[in-house]
């Protein structure tokens, strides 16, 4: 096992532990905003670590190109989805507190 393989293994395991923390937070946390908060961090960082592991296993520019596109798309879409969900939940909670 070369140094790159060790780095790839560490990245994969760190990403998997982050995924586990996402699942734990999804079960444990109380409100929708809490769960969204705990879900978005691993959604970005776990995928980025796995993409980094893929690059460590085959460190050429030809593999780096699609992986960079995937990483940028994931960062943009996760932040957009989290923003829209948070806005919908905020409006829902505000309407509920007004009605009661």
């Amino acid at each position: 096992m070369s140094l790159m393989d060790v780095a790839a293994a560490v990245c994969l395991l760190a990403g998997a532990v982050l995924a586990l923390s996402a699942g734990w937070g999804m079960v444990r946390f109380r409100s929708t905003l809490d769960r969204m908060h705990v879900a978005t961090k691993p959604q970005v960082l776990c995928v980025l670590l796995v993409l980094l592991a893929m690059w460590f296993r085959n460190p050429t520019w030809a593999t780096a190109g699609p992986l960079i596109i995937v990483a940028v798309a994931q960062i943009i879409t996760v932040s957009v989805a989290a923003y829209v969900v948070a806005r919908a939940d905020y409006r829902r909670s505000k309407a509920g507190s007004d009605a009661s």
Partner: protein
Amino acid sequence: MTTVYLVTMALLAVGAAAALYRLGRGPTTLDRAVSLDVITSLAMCGAGAYAAVYGDYSDVPILLVLALLGFVGTVSLAHFFPEGGK
């Protein structure tokens, strides 16, 4: 490397099972949307882990499609979510 692959897949499966629990349980539709997003990301992680361990990079387009289209359902659901609704 196979051990790393198995441990990674086991941890991803546990996380996905927890998200699946929230998908079935979740009090509001937004919770279910968030947990579906998490499951999509974990599927991306699984495909990427397979590619990294076995050196088979033919599933990079799957990652690209999931990254670009995985949020469409969440955004449309939250967009048409009624105020004060469940």
